[in-house]
Protein backbone atom coordinates (compact mmCIF):
# COMPACT_ATOMS: atom_id res chain seq x y z
CA UNK A 1 0.00 0.00 0.00
CA UNK A 2 1.17 3.55 -0.71
CA UNK A 3 2.28 5.56 2.27
CA UNK A 4 0.43 8.88 2.52
CA UNK A 5 1.79 10.20 5.82
CA UNK A 6 5.09 9.38 7.47
CA UNK A 7 6.74 10.84 10.55
CA UNK A 8 10.40 10.21 11.29
CA UNK A 9 11.84 10.79 14.76
CA UNK A 10 9.23 13.43 15.56
CA UNK A 11 9.89 15.23 18.84
CA UNK A 12 8.23 18.19 20.54
CA UNK A 13 9.44 19.83 23.71
CA UNK A 14 7.75 22.62 25.64
CA UNK A 15 10.61 23.76 27.89
CA UNK A 16 11.38 20.81 30.17
CA UNK A 17 8.22 18.92 29.15
CA UNK A 18 8.49 16.44 26.29
CA UNK A 19 5.13 16.14 24.55
CA UNK A 20 6.33 13.93 21.69
CA UNK A 21 9.34 11.65 21.77
CA UNK A 22 10.73 9.98 18.65
CA UNK A 23 7.38 9.33 16.98
CA UNK A 24 7.78 7.14 13.89
CA UNK A 25 4.52 6.43 12.11
CA UNK A 26 3.52 5.39 8.57
CA UNK A 27 -0.10 5.79 7.49
CA UNK A 28 -1.16 4.16 4.23
CA UNK A 29 -3.73 5.34 1.72
CA UNK A 30 -7.24 4.14 2.52
CA UNK A 31 -6.52 3.21 6.14
CA UNK A 32 -8.77 4.19 9.03
CA UNK A 33 -6.43 4.61 11.99
CA UNK A 34 -7.49 5.23 15.56
CA UNK A 35 -5.22 7.17 17.93
CA UNK A 36 -5.74 6.35 21.59
CA UNK A 37 -4.05 7.45 24.79
CA UNK A 38 -4.84 8.98 28.14
CA UNK A 39 -4.95 12.76 28.61
CA UNK A 40 -1.49 14.26 28.08
CA UNK A 41 -0.27 11.22 26.12
CA UNK A 42 0.63 13.38 23.10
CA UNK A 43 -2.25 12.63 20.73
CA UNK A 44 -3.32 16.23 20.09
CA UNK A 45 0.32 17.38 19.96
CA UNK A 46 0.86 14.78 17.23
CA UNK A 47 -2.20 16.01 15.28
CA UNK A 48 -1.17 19.65 15.78
CA UNK A 49 2.34 18.99 14.46
CA UNK A 50 1.11 17.04 11.47
CA UNK A 51 -1.39 19.78 10.52
CA UNK A 52 1.13 22.61 10.93
CA UNK A 53 -0.27 24.20 14.07
CA UNK A 54 2.87 23.29 16.05
CA UNK A 55 6.40 23.13 14.70
CA UNK A 56 8.25 19.98 15.81
CA UNK A 57 11.44 20.42 17.83
CA UNK A 58 13.06 17.68 15.73
CA UNK A 59 12.11 15.13 13.12
CA UNK A 60 10.46 14.98 9.75
CA UNK A 61 6.88 14.81 8.47
CA UNK A 62 6.30 13.59 4.93
CA UNK A 63 2.91 13.92 3.25
CA UNK A 64 2.75 12.09 -0.08
CA UNK A 65 6.55 11.91 0.11
CA UNK A 66 6.98 15.69 0.48
CA UNK A 67 8.24 17.33 3.65
CA UNK A 68 5.59 19.56 5.24
CA UNK A 69 7.75 20.80 8.12
CA UNK A 70 7.45 24.59 8.42
CA UNK A 71 4.35 24.80 6.20
CA UNK A 72 1.36 26.74 7.44
CA UNK A 73 -1.90 24.95 8.31
CA UNK A 74 -3.53 26.46 5.19
CA UNK A 75 -0.71 25.19 2.96
CA UNK A 76 -1.09 21.70 4.46
CA UNK A 77 -4.87 21.90 3.99
CA UNK A 78 -4.36 22.89 0.37
CA UNK A 79 -1.90 20.01 -0.05
CA UNK A 80 -4.75 17.64 0.82
CA UNK A 81 -4.77 17.09 4.59
CA UNK A 82 -7.79 18.52 6.42
CA UNK A 83 -8.85 18.28 10.04
CA UNK A 84 -11.79 18.65 12.37
CA UNK A 85 -11.59 19.74 15.98
CA UNK A 86 -12.37 18.39 19.44
CA UNK A 87 -14.62 21.43 19.94
CA UNK A 88 -16.37 22.10 16.62
CA UNK A 89 -14.81 25.20 15.08
CA UNK A 90 -17.66 27.01 13.34
CA UNK A 91 -18.67 30.58 12.50
CA UNK A 92 -21.15 31.09 15.29
CA UNK A 93 -23.09 34.08 13.98
CA UNK A 94 -23.73 32.52 10.58
CA UNK A 95 -26.18 29.92 9.33
CA UNK A 96 -25.20 26.32 8.61
CA UNK A 97 -25.37 27.05 4.88
CA UNK A 98 -23.13 30.13 5.16
CA UNK A 99 -20.59 28.11 7.16
CA UNK A 100 -20.42 25.60 4.35
CA UNK A 101 -20.40 28.27 1.64
CA UNK A 102 -17.36 29.85 3.27
CA UNK A 103 -15.68 26.44 3.25
CA UNK A 104 -16.56 25.96 -0.42
CA UNK A 105 -15.30 29.43 -1.30
CA UNK A 106 -12.03 28.90 0.61
CA UNK A 107 -11.50 25.55 -1.09
CA UNK A 108 -12.00 27.07 -4.54
CA UNK A 109 -9.42 29.85 -4.33
CA UNK A 110 -6.86 31.24 -1.87
CA UNK A 111 -7.73 34.71 -3.22
CA UNK A 112 -11.39 35.45 -2.49
CA UNK A 113 -13.30 37.61 -4.93
CA UNK A 114 -13.90 41.22 -3.88
CA UNK A 115 -17.17 41.85 -5.69
CA UNK A 116 -18.67 38.57 -6.98
CA UNK A 117 -21.28 37.29 -4.51
CA UNK A 118 -20.27 34.37 -2.32
CA UNK A 119 -23.74 32.88 -2.64
CA UNK A 120 -23.87 31.58 -6.19
CA UNK A 121 -25.73 28.62 -7.64
CA UNK A 122 -22.74 26.28 -7.99
CA UNK A 123 -21.48 26.91 -4.44
CA UNK A 124 -24.97 26.48 -2.99
CA UNK A 125 -25.35 23.23 -4.92
CA UNK A 126 -22.04 21.95 -3.53
CA UNK A 127 -22.97 22.94 0.02
CA UNK A 128 -26.42 21.35 -0.31
CA UNK A 129 -24.84 18.16 -1.61
CA UNK A 130 -22.54 17.78 1.41
CA UNK A 131 -25.43 18.59 3.78
CA UNK A 132 -27.44 15.82 2.12
CA UNK A 133 -24.50 13.40 2.40
CA UNK A 134 -24.32 14.00 6.14
CA UNK A 135 -28.13 13.92 6.37
CA UNK A 136 -28.33 17.35 8.01
CA UNK A 137 -30.15 19.28 5.25
CA UNK A 138 -33.00 20.20 7.60
CA UNK A 139 -30.58 22.45 9.56
CA UNK A 140 -29.50 24.31 6.40
CA UNK A 141 -30.82 27.77 7.28
CA UNK A 142 -30.48 27.52 11.06
CA UNK A 143 -27.80 29.59 12.87
CA UNK A 144 -25.10 27.16 13.98
CA UNK A 145 -25.56 28.24 17.59
CA UNK A 146 -29.06 26.74 17.48
CA UNK A 147 -28.14 23.26 16.22
CA UNK A 148 -27.47 20.23 18.50
CA UNK A 149 -23.93 19.31 19.44
CA UNK A 150 -23.88 16.19 17.28
CA UNK A 151 -24.91 18.21 14.22
CA UNK A 152 -22.23 20.80 15.00
CA UNK A 153 -19.66 17.99 14.95
CA UNK A 154 -20.95 16.84 11.58
CA UNK A 155 -20.83 20.39 10.17
CA UNK A 156 -17.23 20.69 11.39
CA UNK A 157 -16.30 17.48 9.60
CA UNK A 158 -18.31 18.45 6.49
CA UNK A 159 -16.37 21.72 6.27
CA UNK A 160 -13.09 19.82 6.46
CA UNK A 161 -14.25 17.41 3.78
CA UNK A 162 -15.53 20.01 1.35
CA UNK A 163 -12.11 20.67 -0.21
CA UNK A 164 -11.83 16.97 -1.21
CA UNK A 165 -8.82 16.16 0.99
CA UNK A 166 -6.86 12.94 0.60
CA UNK A 167 -6.51 12.60 4.35
CA UNK A 168 -8.78 13.64 7.20
CA UNK A 169 -7.71 14.00 10.82
CA UNK A 170 -10.58 13.92 13.29
CA UNK A 171 -9.82 15.11 16.80
CA UNK A 172 -12.26 13.32 19.12
CA UNK A 173 -15.25 13.36 16.77
CA UNK A 174 -17.62 12.03 19.44
CA UNK A 175 -16.55 14.21 22.38
CA UNK A 176 -19.46 16.10 23.90
CA UNK A 177 -21.95 13.82 22.15
CA UNK A 178 -24.28 11.62 24.21
CA UNK A 179 -23.55 7.88 24.35
CA UNK A 180 -26.77 7.11 22.43
CA UNK A 181 -25.82 9.44 19.55
CA UNK A 182 -22.18 8.36 19.20
CA UNK A 183 -22.77 5.32 17.03
CA UNK A 184 -25.20 7.07 14.69
CA UNK A 185 -22.78 10.00 14.33
CA UNK A 186 -19.79 7.79 13.60
CA UNK A 187 -21.82 5.61 11.21
CA UNK A 188 -22.65 8.78 9.26
CA UNK A 189 -19.07 10.06 9.29
CA UNK A 190 -17.57 6.74 8.24
CA UNK A 191 -20.16 6.26 5.48
CA UNK A 192 -19.35 9.68 4.00
CA UNK A 193 -15.57 9.38 4.27
CA UNK A 194 -15.74 5.95 2.65
CA UNK A 195 -17.69 7.48 -0.26
CA UNK A 196 -14.99 10.15 -0.61
CA UNK A 197 -12.22 7.50 -0.35
CA UNK A 198 -10.36 9.50 2.28
CA UNK A 199 -7.65 8.16 4.55
CA UNK A 200 -8.75 8.79 8.14
CA UNK A 201 -6.83 9.21 11.35
CA UNK A 202 -8.95 9.91 14.38
CA UNK A 203 -8.31 10.49 18.04
CA UNK A 204 -10.84 8.82 20.29
CA UNK A 205 -11.26 7.91 23.96
CA UNK A 206 -14.21 5.56 23.56
CA UNK A 207 -12.75 2.09 22.93
CA UNK A 208 -16.07 0.75 21.63
CA UNK A 209 -16.04 3.43 18.92
CA UNK A 210 -12.38 2.67 18.11
CA UNK A 211 -12.97 -1.09 17.86
CA UNK A 212 -15.99 -0.62 15.63
CA UNK A 213 -14.46 1.60 12.96
CA UNK A 214 -10.67 1.34 12.72
CA UNK A 215 -8.41 -1.05 10.88
CA UNK A 216 -5.39 -0.09 12.96
CA UNK A 217 -4.62 1.57 16.31
CA UNK A 218 -1.79 3.82 17.44
CA UNK A 219 -1.56 3.86 21.24
CA UNK A 220 0.25 6.87 22.71
CA UNK A 221 1.69 7.11 26.18
CA UNK A 222 3.87 9.90 27.54
CA UNK A 223 4.62 11.29 24.07
CA UNK A 224 5.66 7.93 22.61
CA UNK A 225 3.93 5.36 20.47
CA UNK A 226 3.40 2.47 22.87
CA UNK A 227 1.83 0.12 20.36
CA UNK A 228 0.89 0.17 16.67
CA UNK A 229 -1.11 -2.53 14.93
CA UNK A 230 -4.43 -4.29 14.46
CA UNK A 231 -7.10 -3.32 17.02
CA UNK A 232 -7.28 -6.63 18.89
CA UNK A 233 -3.50 -6.94 19.09
CA UNK A 234 -3.06 -3.40 20.43
CA UNK A 235 -5.96 -3.54 22.87
CA UNK A 236 -4.77 -6.88 24.29
CA UNK A 237 -1.20 -5.57 24.68
CA UNK A 238 -0.49 -5.63 28.48
CA UNK A 239 1.32 -2.27 28.38
CA UNK A 240 -1.59 -0.64 26.53
CA UNK A 241 -3.98 -2.13 29.06
CA UNK A 242 -1.85 -0.86 31.94
CA UNK A 243 -1.17 2.69 30.67
CA UNK A 244 -4.00 3.49 28.23
CA UNK A 245 -7.16 1.45 28.59
CA UNK A 246 -6.81 0.83 32.33
CA UNK A 247 -6.32 -2.94 32.66
CA UNK A 248 -7.57 -6.05 30.87
CA UNK A 249 -11.06 -5.89 32.34
CA UNK A 250 -11.32 -2.13 32.68
CA UNK A 251 -14.31 -1.78 30.41
CA UNK A 252 -16.09 -4.64 32.18
CA UNK A 253 -15.33 -3.07 35.56
CA UNK A 254 -16.60 0.29 34.28
CA UNK A 255 -19.78 -1.37 33.05
CA UNK A 256 -20.35 -2.95 36.46
Amino acid at each position, binding site marked *: MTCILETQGLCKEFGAVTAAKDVNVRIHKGEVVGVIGSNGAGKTTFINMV*TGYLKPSRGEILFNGQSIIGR*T*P*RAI*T*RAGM*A*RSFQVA*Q*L*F*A*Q*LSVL*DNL*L*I*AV*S*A*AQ*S*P*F*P*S*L*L*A*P*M*RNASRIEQADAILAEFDISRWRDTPVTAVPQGVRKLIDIA*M*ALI*GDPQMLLLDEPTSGVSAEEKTALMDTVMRVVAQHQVTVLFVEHDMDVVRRYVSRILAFYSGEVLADGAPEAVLSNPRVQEFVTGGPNAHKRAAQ
Partner: protein
Amino acid sequence: MRLSKTELILLGVAVLLAAGGVIAPQWLVFLLTMALAKAMVVQGVVMQMRAGLVTFGQGLFFCIGGYAVGMSGHFLNITDLVLLLLIGVGAAVLLAMLLGLLMTRYREIFFAMLSLAFSMILYGVLVKSSALGSTDGFNVKAWTLFGWTPASGQAPLALFIIIVACSGLLAVLLHRYSRSSAGMMCEAIRENEVRVEYLGQSPRWVLYMNYVAAAAVSALGGGFMALSAGHIDPEMAYWITSGEFVFIALLGGTAHVAAPFIAAVLFAVVRTYAIEWMPHSWQMILGFTLLAIIVFLPKGLWSLFTAQARRAKA
Protein backbone atom coordinates in the same frame (compact mmCIF):
# COMPACT_ATOMS: atom_id res chain seq x y z
CA MET B 1 -24.01 45.00 -14.33
CA ARG B 2 -27.33 43.83 -12.88
CA LEU B 3 -28.42 45.76 -9.83
CA SER B 4 -30.19 44.15 -6.89
CA LYS B 5 -33.24 45.69 -5.22
CA THR B 6 -31.08 47.07 -2.40
CA GLU B 7 -28.64 48.60 -4.86
CA LEU B 8 -31.46 50.23 -6.82
CA ILE B 9 -32.82 51.70 -3.57
CA LEU B 10 -29.35 53.02 -2.65
CA LEU B 11 -28.96 54.67 -6.05
CA GLY B 12 -32.55 55.97 -5.91
CA VAL B 13 -31.91 57.62 -2.54
CA ALA B 14 -28.74 59.18 -3.96
CA VAL B 15 -30.68 60.64 -6.91
CA LEU B 16 -33.36 62.04 -4.56
CA LEU B 17 -30.71 63.48 -2.26
CA ALA B 18 -28.90 65.15 -5.17
CA ALA B 19 -32.18 66.59 -6.44
CA GLY B 20 -33.04 67.78 -2.92
CA GLY B 21 -29.72 69.61 -2.79
CA VAL B 22 -30.91 71.96 -5.55
CA ILE B 23 -33.68 73.37 -3.34
CA ALA B 24 -31.97 72.95 0.03
CA PRO B 25 -30.43 75.97 1.82
CA GLN B 26 -26.69 76.35 1.42
CA TRP B 27 -25.94 75.57 5.08
CA LEU B 28 -27.71 72.22 4.73
CA VAL B 29 -25.87 71.40 1.50
CA PHE B 30 -22.56 72.09 3.25
CA LEU B 31 -23.55 70.08 6.33
CA LEU B 32 -24.58 67.09 4.20
CA THR B 33 -21.41 67.29 2.09
CA MET B 34 -19.26 67.17 5.21
CA ALA B 35 -21.39 64.36 6.67
CA LEU B 36 -21.07 62.25 3.51
CA ALA B 37 -17.30 62.82 3.43
CA LYS B 38 -17.09 61.60 7.03
CA ALA B 39 -19.40 58.70 6.22
CA MET B 40 -16.85 57.47 3.67
CA VAL B 41 -14.19 57.36 6.38
CA VAL B 42 -16.64 55.58 8.68
CA GLN B 43 -17.19 52.99 5.94
CA GLY B 44 -13.48 52.20 6.30
CA VAL B 45 -13.91 51.78 10.06
CA VAL B 46 -16.97 49.56 9.57
CA MET B 47 -15.19 47.38 6.98
CA GLN B 48 -12.60 46.58 9.62
CA MET B 49 -15.18 46.14 12.39
CA ARG B 50 -16.86 43.49 10.27
CA ALA B 51 -13.53 41.62 10.35
CA GLY B 52 -13.40 41.98 14.14
CA LEU B 53 -10.89 44.83 14.19
CA VAL B 54 -11.46 48.24 15.75
CA THR B 55 -9.27 51.04 14.45
CA PHE B 56 -8.64 54.17 16.46
CA GLY B 57 -6.48 55.57 13.68
CA GLN B 58 -8.60 55.84 10.55
CA GLY B 59 -7.88 59.56 10.71
CA LEU B 60 -4.51 58.60 9.23
CA PHE B 61 -6.01 57.83 5.82
CA PHE B 62 -8.58 60.62 6.12
CA CYS B 63 -5.66 63.00 6.60
CA ILE B 64 -3.54 61.43 3.84
CA GLY B 65 -6.45 61.83 1.41
CA GLY B 66 -6.97 65.44 2.46
CA TYR B 67 -3.30 66.43 2.41
CA ALA B 68 -2.64 64.65 -0.90
CA VAL B 69 -5.46 66.69 -2.45
CA GLY B 70 -4.27 69.92 -0.81
CA MET B 71 -0.60 69.41 -1.65
CA SER B 72 -1.31 68.39 -5.25
CA GLY B 73 -3.12 71.67 -5.75
CA HIS B 74 -0.64 73.73 -3.79
CA PHE B 75 2.64 72.33 -5.11
CA LEU B 76 1.70 70.73 -8.46
CA ASN B 77 -1.08 73.13 -9.54
CA ILE B 78 -3.43 70.25 -10.14
CA THR B 79 -7.04 71.41 -9.79
CA ASP B 80 -9.05 68.70 -11.53
CA LEU B 81 -11.29 67.13 -8.90
CA VAL B 82 -11.15 63.60 -10.28
CA LEU B 83 -7.37 63.66 -10.57
CA LEU B 84 -7.02 65.14 -7.08
CA LEU B 85 -9.23 62.48 -5.54
CA LEU B 86 -7.38 59.74 -7.41
CA ILE B 87 -4.06 61.05 -6.10
CA GLY B 88 -5.48 61.08 -2.56
CA VAL B 89 -6.75 57.51 -2.85
CA GLY B 90 -3.52 56.37 -4.52
CA ALA B 91 -1.37 57.86 -1.75
CA ALA B 92 -3.47 56.15 0.92
CA VAL B 93 -3.38 52.83 -0.90
CA LEU B 94 0.42 52.95 -1.16
CA LEU B 95 0.77 53.78 2.53
CA ALA B 96 -1.78 51.12 3.51
CA MET B 97 0.04 48.51 1.43
CA LEU B 98 3.16 49.23 3.45
CA LEU B 99 1.55 49.58 6.91
CA GLY B 100 -0.78 46.66 6.27
CA LEU B 101 2.19 44.29 6.27
CA LEU B 102 2.66 45.11 9.96
CA MET B 103 -0.92 45.92 10.98
CA THR B 104 -2.34 42.57 9.86
CA ARG B 105 -0.08 40.78 12.32
CA TYR B 106 -2.01 42.28 15.22
CA ARG B 107 -5.52 41.83 16.61
CA GLU B 108 -7.81 43.37 19.22
CA ILE B 109 -6.37 46.15 21.39
CA PHE B 110 -2.92 45.83 19.81
CA PHE B 111 -4.36 46.58 16.37
CA ALA B 112 -6.38 49.47 17.78
CA MET B 113 -3.39 51.03 19.55
CA LEU B 114 -1.02 50.53 16.63
CA SER B 115 -3.48 52.20 14.25
CA LEU B 116 -3.73 55.07 16.71
CA ALA B 117 0.06 55.28 16.93
CA PHE B 118 0.51 55.62 13.17
CA SER B 119 -2.10 58.37 12.89
CA MET B 120 -0.47 60.24 15.78
CA ILE B 121 2.94 59.91 14.12
CA LEU B 122 1.50 61.62 11.04
CA TYR B 123 -0.08 64.26 13.27
CA GLY B 124 3.29 64.89 14.91
CA VAL B 125 5.07 65.17 11.56
CA LEU B 126 2.49 67.60 10.17
CA VAL B 127 2.53 69.77 13.28
CA LYS B 128 6.30 70.15 12.88
CA SER B 129 6.16 70.81 9.12
CA SER B 130 6.24 74.56 8.64
CA ALA B 131 6.11 74.14 4.83
CA LEU B 132 2.65 72.62 5.33
CA GLY B 133 1.46 75.30 7.72
CA SER B 134 2.25 73.43 10.96
CA THR B 135 -0.78 73.39 13.28
CA ASP B 136 -2.67 75.91 11.10
CA GLY B 137 -2.56 73.76 7.98
CA PHE B 138 -3.23 75.52 4.68
CA ASN B 139 -6.01 76.42 2.27
CA VAL B 140 -6.92 74.10 -0.60
CA LYS B 141 -7.10 75.55 -4.10
CA ALA B 142 -10.49 75.80 -5.82
CA TRP B 143 -11.26 72.70 -7.89
CA THR B 144 -12.22 72.29 -11.53
CA LEU B 145 -13.85 69.36 -13.32
CA PHE B 146 -12.58 68.34 -16.75
CA GLY B 147 -11.80 71.99 -17.53
CA TRP B 148 -15.04 73.39 -16.09
CA THR B 149 -14.61 75.91 -13.29
CA PRO B 150 -17.72 76.33 -11.14
CA ALA B 151 -18.69 79.87 -10.21
CA SER B 152 -18.03 80.59 -6.55
CA GLY B 153 -21.73 80.30 -5.66
CA GLN B 154 -22.15 77.06 -7.64
CA ALA B 155 -19.19 75.15 -6.25
CA PRO B 156 -20.79 73.88 -2.99
CA LEU B 157 -23.88 72.55 -4.79
CA ALA B 158 -21.81 71.00 -7.59
CA LEU B 159 -19.53 69.34 -5.05
CA PHE B 160 -22.59 68.11 -3.15
CA ILE B 161 -24.00 66.48 -6.29
CA ILE B 162 -20.61 64.89 -7.02
CA ILE B 163 -20.21 63.52 -3.49
CA VAL B 164 -23.77 62.18 -3.49
CA ALA B 165 -23.09 60.42 -6.81
CA CYS B 166 -19.82 59.00 -5.44
CA SER B 167 -21.57 57.92 -2.23
CA GLY B 168 -24.25 56.11 -4.22
CA LEU B 169 -21.66 54.25 -6.30
CA LEU B 170 -19.54 53.54 -3.24
CA ALA B 171 -22.59 52.19 -1.39
CA VAL B 172 -23.31 49.80 -4.28
CA LEU B 173 -19.69 48.65 -4.42
CA LEU B 174 -19.45 48.17 -0.64
CA HIS B 175 -22.79 46.37 -0.61
CA ARG B 176 -21.37 43.96 -3.17
CA TYR B 177 -18.13 43.67 -1.25
CA SER B 178 -19.97 42.79 1.97
CA ARG B 179 -21.67 39.89 0.17
CA SER B 180 -18.61 38.76 -1.78
CA SER B 181 -16.32 35.90 -0.79
CA ALA B 182 -13.81 38.43 0.61
CA GLY B 183 -16.49 40.27 2.60
CA MET B 184 -17.94 37.06 4.03
CA MET B 185 -14.43 35.81 4.76
CA CYS B 186 -13.93 38.94 6.90
CA GLU B 187 -16.96 37.93 8.95
CA ALA B 188 -15.62 34.40 9.18
CA ILE B 189 -12.28 35.71 10.46
CA ARG B 190 -14.09 37.76 13.11
CA GLU B 191 -15.91 34.60 14.21
CA ASN B 192 -13.10 32.06 14.05
CA GLU B 193 -9.73 32.84 12.53
CA VAL B 194 -8.26 29.40 13.24
CA ARG B 195 -11.03 27.75 11.26
CA VAL B 196 -10.45 30.05 8.29
CA GLU B 197 -6.76 29.06 8.29
CA TYR B 198 -7.72 25.36 8.36
CA LEU B 199 -10.04 25.86 5.41
CA GLY B 200 -6.96 26.76 3.36
CA GLN B 201 -7.48 30.52 3.39
CA SER B 202 -4.97 33.08 4.64
CA PRO B 203 -6.66 35.34 7.23
CA ARG B 204 -3.74 37.76 6.95
CA TRP B 205 -4.17 38.14 3.20
CA VAL B 206 -7.92 38.76 3.57
CA LEU B 207 -7.33 41.30 6.34
CA TYR B 208 -4.59 42.94 4.28
CA MET B 209 -6.91 43.41 1.28
CA ASN B 210 -9.60 44.70 3.60
CA TYR B 211 -7.18 47.13 5.28
CA VAL B 212 -6.02 48.57 1.94
CA ALA B 213 -9.59 48.85 0.62
CA ALA B 214 -10.70 50.57 3.84
CA ALA B 215 -7.80 53.02 3.52
CA ALA B 216 -8.83 53.86 -0.06
CA VAL B 217 -12.43 54.53 0.94
CA SER B 218 -11.37 56.66 3.91
CA ALA B 219 -8.93 58.67 1.80
CA LEU B 220 -11.74 59.44 -0.64
CA GLY B 221 -13.65 60.94 2.30
CA GLY B 222 -10.56 62.94 3.28
CA GLY B 223 -10.21 64.27 -0.26
CA PHE B 224 -13.83 65.39 -0.38
CA MET B 225 -13.50 66.96 3.06
CA ALA B 226 -10.50 69.02 1.88
CA LEU B 227 -12.31 70.18 -1.27
CA SER B 228 -15.49 70.98 0.62
CA ALA B 229 -13.96 72.81 3.59
CA GLY B 230 -11.25 74.38 1.43
CA HIS B 231 -8.79 73.92 4.25
CA ILE B 232 -6.77 71.12 5.79
CA ASP B 233 -4.88 70.88 9.06
CA PRO B 234 -3.18 68.21 11.17
CA GLU B 235 -6.34 67.76 13.28
CA MET B 236 -7.49 65.39 10.54
CA ALA B 237 -5.01 62.83 11.89
CA TYR B 238 -5.61 63.60 15.56
CA TRP B 239 -6.94 60.81 17.77
CA ILE B 240 -10.14 62.70 18.58
CA THR B 241 -10.99 62.80 14.87
CA SER B 242 -10.43 59.03 14.63
CA GLY B 243 -12.54 58.58 17.76
CA GLU B 244 -15.34 60.51 16.08
CA PHE B 245 -15.34 57.99 13.21
CA VAL B 246 -15.61 55.10 15.66
CA PHE B 247 -18.42 57.00 17.40
CA ILE B 248 -20.35 57.30 14.12
CA ALA B 249 -19.67 53.65 13.28
CA LEU B 250 -21.16 52.57 16.62
CA LEU B 251 -24.07 54.95 16.11
CA GLY B 252 -24.99 53.36 12.78
CA GLY B 253 -23.97 49.75 13.34
CA THR B 254 -22.28 47.36 10.93
CA ALA B 255 -25.30 45.52 9.58
CA HIS B 256 -25.80 47.50 6.38
CA VAL B 257 -23.79 49.71 4.04
CA ALA B 258 -26.37 52.52 4.41
CA ALA B 259 -25.91 52.69 8.21
CA PRO B 260 -22.70 54.81 8.24
CA PHE B 261 -24.30 57.38 5.88
CA ILE B 262 -27.41 57.71 8.07
CA ALA B 263 -25.31 57.84 11.25
CA ALA B 264 -22.95 60.47 9.83
CA VAL B 265 -25.85 62.73 8.86
CA LEU B 266 -27.50 62.26 12.26
CA PHE B 267 -24.18 62.94 13.99
CA ALA B 268 -23.70 66.16 12.01
CA VAL B 269 -27.22 67.35 12.85
CA VAL B 270 -26.94 66.46 16.56
CA ARG B 271 -23.54 68.12 16.81
CA THR B 272 -24.64 71.26 14.98
CA TYR B 273 -27.65 71.75 17.25
CA ALA B 274 -25.73 70.70 20.37
CA ILE B 275 -23.12 73.40 19.67
CA GLU B 276 -25.90 75.92 19.11
CA TRP B 277 -27.72 75.08 22.33
CA MET B 278 -24.78 74.34 24.61
CA PRO B 279 -21.66 75.92 23.08
CA HIS B 280 -19.48 75.07 26.09
CA SER B 281 -20.66 71.55 26.83
CA TRP B 282 -21.94 70.18 23.53
CA GLN B 283 -19.73 67.10 23.93
CA MET B 284 -21.99 66.07 26.84
CA ILE B 285 -24.98 65.82 24.49
CA LEU B 286 -22.97 63.66 22.09
CA GLY B 287 -21.88 61.50 25.04
CA PHE B 288 -25.46 60.97 26.18
CA THR B 289 -26.50 60.20 22.60
CA LEU B 290 -23.87 57.47 22.31
CA LEU B 291 -24.78 56.16 25.77
CA ALA B 292 -28.44 55.92 24.75
CA ILE B 293 -27.52 54.12 21.52
CA ILE B 294 -25.31 51.59 23.31
CA VAL B 295 -27.97 50.90 25.98
CA PHE B 296 -31.09 50.84 23.79
CA LEU B 297 -29.71 49.94 20.34
CA PRO B 298 -26.49 47.99 20.92
CA LYS B 299 -26.35 47.06 17.23
CA GLY B 300 -26.72 50.68 16.16
CA LEU B 301 -29.43 52.68 14.44
CA TRP B 302 -29.73 50.15 11.66
CA SER B 303 -31.23 47.66 14.12
CA LEU B 304 -34.38 49.84 14.04
CA PHE B 305 -34.80 48.91 10.37
CA THR B 306 -34.00 45.22 10.88
CA ALA B 307 -36.46 45.03 13.80
CA GLN B 308 -39.11 46.65 11.59
CA ALA B 309 -38.36 44.21 8.77
CA ARG B 310 -38.61 41.24 11.19
CA ARG B 311 -41.99 42.48 12.45
CA ALA B 312 -43.24 42.92 8.87
CA LYS B 313 -42.07 39.40 8.00
CA ALA B 314 -43.79 37.94 11.08
